């Protein structure tokens, strides 16, 4: 009530300025007294910040939230939105300190969840786990399933696939149509080489959300693993149909075509992947391999060169280039490439060096 009145007084004084142009000094003095009290200046500036955020003007939005926080240092929402703006700018560390402040002022499931996400993004796994657990404890019905889901992701990233599956299960228990959780659980099972189980989860995920191109891609890769090359090609093709710029799926499908010795199709897919993403070193490397298999060693080397120019630490591209150079009887060149590949951690290259290089 009191807050409301102060706001009100300010309004009146504001108009008072207009009404009493001939008594400015008196009015100014009164305004000073009133503005020290609680009012909505901070809220207004905060709201402008949201508008700017929505326009993608993150720097300007942050400036507004800064101002709002200056006026109202315990303005939890302003901290949260400043954090969000910083997340958009990928300034994760800065966003964390804002979330810390917001949580200190007004702990909420939402804030825990958001900070958990950022910590997960920063690979601060223990921090993320603690936040998602706090979020679950806060018992927000909307955030419970996602918090379990992300606990799954945190474990997945740390290769604790069995643990991850347990959390994905909980996520699904809380949200039976959680397509992401089905996809990820499938992926965890894939990592555990439970391929049939993985396929089941992927199929369910697609049933729930038929637009998830990446799930088709993942399903295809499992089929490739179990030798169902036709099935893999069908699923990669579905992924591409859903997402025509899905260069990863093109690169993957190309590799399957190559397994089937369908060179033209393989080359076309790798080339398409490169057209979509000219910096996709994997596709250059794989196209190089396709050309190697066709005994087009010079052409292959050009592709490996491209892969290496994109990523100068691409160990496999050096390894493979060395293999093609060997076939051109460029012994020095192949040895130099294998040595480089080994220095980048490719063990196979070491065997080649020991066997064939002085």
């Amino acid at each position, binding site marked *: 009530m009191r807050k409301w009145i102060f706001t009100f007084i300010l*309004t009146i004084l504001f108009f008072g300025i207009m009404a009493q142009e001939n008594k400015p000094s008196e009015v100014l003095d009164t305004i000073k007294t009133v503005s020290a009290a609680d009012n909505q200046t901070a809220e207004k500036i905060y709201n402008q910040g949201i508008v700017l955020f929505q326009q993608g003007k993150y720097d300007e939005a942050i400036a507004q939230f800064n101002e709002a926080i200056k006026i109202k240092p315990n303005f939890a929402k302003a901290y949260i939105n400043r954090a969000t703006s910083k997340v958009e700018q990928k300034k994760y560390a800065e966003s964390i300190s804002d979330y810390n402040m917001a949580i200190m002022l007004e702990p909420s499931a939402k804030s825990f969840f958001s900070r958990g996400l950022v910590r997960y993004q920063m690979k601060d796994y223990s921090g993320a786990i603690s936040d998602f657990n706090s979020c679950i404890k806060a018992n927000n019905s909307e955030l419970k399933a996602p918090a379990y889901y992300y606990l799954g992701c945190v474990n997945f990233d740390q290769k604790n696939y069995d643990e991850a599956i347990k959390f994905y299960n909980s996520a699904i228990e809380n949200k039976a149509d959680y397509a992401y959780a089905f996809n990820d659980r499938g992926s965890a099972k894939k990592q555990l080489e439970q391929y049939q189980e993985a396929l089941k989860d992927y199929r369910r995920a697609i049933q729930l959300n038929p637009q998830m191109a990446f799930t088709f891609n993942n399903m295809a890769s499992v089929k490739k693993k179990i030798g169902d090359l036709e099935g893999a090609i069908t699923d990669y093709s579905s992924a591409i149909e859903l997402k025509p710029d899905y260069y990863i799926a093109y690169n993957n499908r190309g590799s399957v075509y190559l397994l089937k010795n369908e060179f033209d199709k393989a080359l076309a897919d790798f080339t398409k992947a490169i057209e979509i993403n000219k910096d996709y070193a994997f596709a250059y490397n794989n196209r190089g391999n396709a050309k190697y298999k066709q005994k087009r060693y010079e052409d292959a080397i050009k592709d490996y060169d491209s892969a290496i120019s994109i990523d100068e630490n691409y160990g496999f591209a050096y390894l493979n280039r060395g293999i093609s150079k060997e076939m051109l009887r460029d012994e020095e060149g192949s040895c130099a490439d294998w040595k480089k590949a080994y220095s980048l951690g490719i063990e196979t290259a070491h065997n080649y060096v020991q066997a064939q290089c002085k």
Partner: protein
Amino acid sequence: MIKGLNFIILIFISLNIFSQTKNVEFTKESFPNNISQLDEALKDIGDGDYYYNDGIGNIEVAISFYLKANQFNPNNALLNYKIALCYLEVKPVNQAIKHFYIAQELDDRVSSDFNYNLARAYHLSFDFDKAVELYRLYKRSLKPADLTAMSDEIDKKISECENGKELIKNPVRVKIENMGSGVNSRFPDYGPIINSDESILFFTSRREGSTGEDKDINDFEYYEDIYYSEYKSSYWAPPVNIGLPINSFTHDAVIGMSPDGTSILIYRDNNGGDIYISKLSGLKWAKPKSLGSPINSNGQENSGTFTFDGKGLYFVSDRPGGYGGKDIYFSRMNTDGKWLEPMNLGASINTKYNEIGVFMLPDGRTLYFSSQGHKTMGGYDIFKSTFENGKWSEPVNIGYPINSADNDVFFSISASGRHGYYSSVRDDGKGGQDIYLVNFFGPEKYPIFNNEDNLIASKEAADLEVNMEKFEKIHTTKLTLVKGQITDALTGEKLLAQIDLIDNQTGEILATFESNSASGKYIVSLPSGKNYGIAVRAEDYLFHSENFDIPESSEYHEVTKNISLKHVEVGSEIALHNIFFDYKKSDLTKESISELNRLVSLLKQYPTIKIEISGHTDEIGGEEYNQTLSTQRAKAVVDYLISKGISSARLSYVGYGFSKPIAPNDTEEGRQQNRRSEFLIISK
């Protein structure tokens, strides 16, 4: 290649099906009108036979005569058969196969050896299955006496084909290159000996221009001479005849080199064929010296390789006491520099067939040699054996495509181990044997593919699902702005007045402010959600009241309300907008207190004035009803004033019902204005 060959044959056979022709003999009966040409053709055949019998060196000549005769009469089975046999020796083999089939088509009994020779052609073409089939067919066709003589040979051919089938399944990783026209000629070139840094190649050639320019009457090829070629950064320079005193008028072949590269081992025809050595001093080669006994024997010694220290020599000899044909022997030099009695390398290396072309790796225990025995796929193949635990390992065929079904000989390996050199007869040959370079690749390697998946769904979302907080509600955004001018009702003079803003709910004065003394203007902003009373006061004037009931939901709007204040004088009348009653009743509500108290203050400030309170209603309900209600309501106000200590003598009341409307009654707004209380000063 093999497939292509079959294809050609197929076409050929089908052509013949459609043009079934008969064997045409070279007789006057066949060519009654062409006697002179017939004679010519018969002479060509005779010449062809003559040169064919000379041996390998003149087979090309034989072919040219046969082809001339064949042009005159292409339909003679025997002539085609002879042409096929020539091509079988000097290649290309597909020409041999073609003429074999023409011959067969014309006369399927052209030769009792037909199947055998056709089998050899397929054998050389790596079509081992067909070759085996034909060898077996041939074997079955033999008379018992011939079978006894031929059985072993045919069985060996068949096993060679079986070896070939196995070897061709697992080709070794090499690239084989013809040394090119810089080195190879259309004549036999063979026996490559490379120095340690692969900068000089010595080899043996039977090309034109050999020393003495004479041919060996045994095969009508030029005598062997030794040549060398130097590698010039990217190519082999044209070979140079090493000249005198090394090359002589007869056979001189290079067969080995000392580890330091300063001496070469030479084969010469003398004494049945002996090994000689020549040292390079400065730029001159010394006159070759025979290695003498016990290396050389009355038999033929024709290949040799030193051990790494130069104190041991592996060499080939057909001296008696071996396992058959040419065998490989080893001799060691004693401290006096004399060669000790050679030892046969034994049954694991030597077979009843020939072993030739020996080469020892600098490691001192890896021996390469060519053999017609062991698991050859035809002719001489190159084998490798290592000396381990005091014995030679079972020789291993070094594999296809280095070895072919023809002769593959004189294999040596460069010091780096990356290249091999040998002599072979291959499709890309320049004629006769040629020297080939073998590039060894390492074990087969499989390039690594890189693929990735999008295993975690949330990582595919464009943004993190962090929560943005919503807009804060700004209360002041919804207000009603009341503005206007305060003037004297009579003179229109602009007035400085106090404006009280009252929350009627609580009676609290929310704020008090003043109008501009010069313009009389004022502005009040009223946030939504309240019932406001506004009281305008000025010295010596009657107060003026306004009511604004602004619900929470009302949006921003502006109201202009000009207020004229009246002096406290008889006849001045004021509407009391902030006096409220319960619905259809005359009970004052608590929202009225503030206004009523103002009235009390006024009466106390001017203790002499007498006033009349009047009540007014709208038109809803009957006239009588409204008359009564208005009267009761006016009375209720008066009663309140009395209760606050105002003398009843100063107060009167009257109800007017709806008889004095100040606004039309057809709108709610108008009716609200008409529902009012007023007071009138009746005396001062």
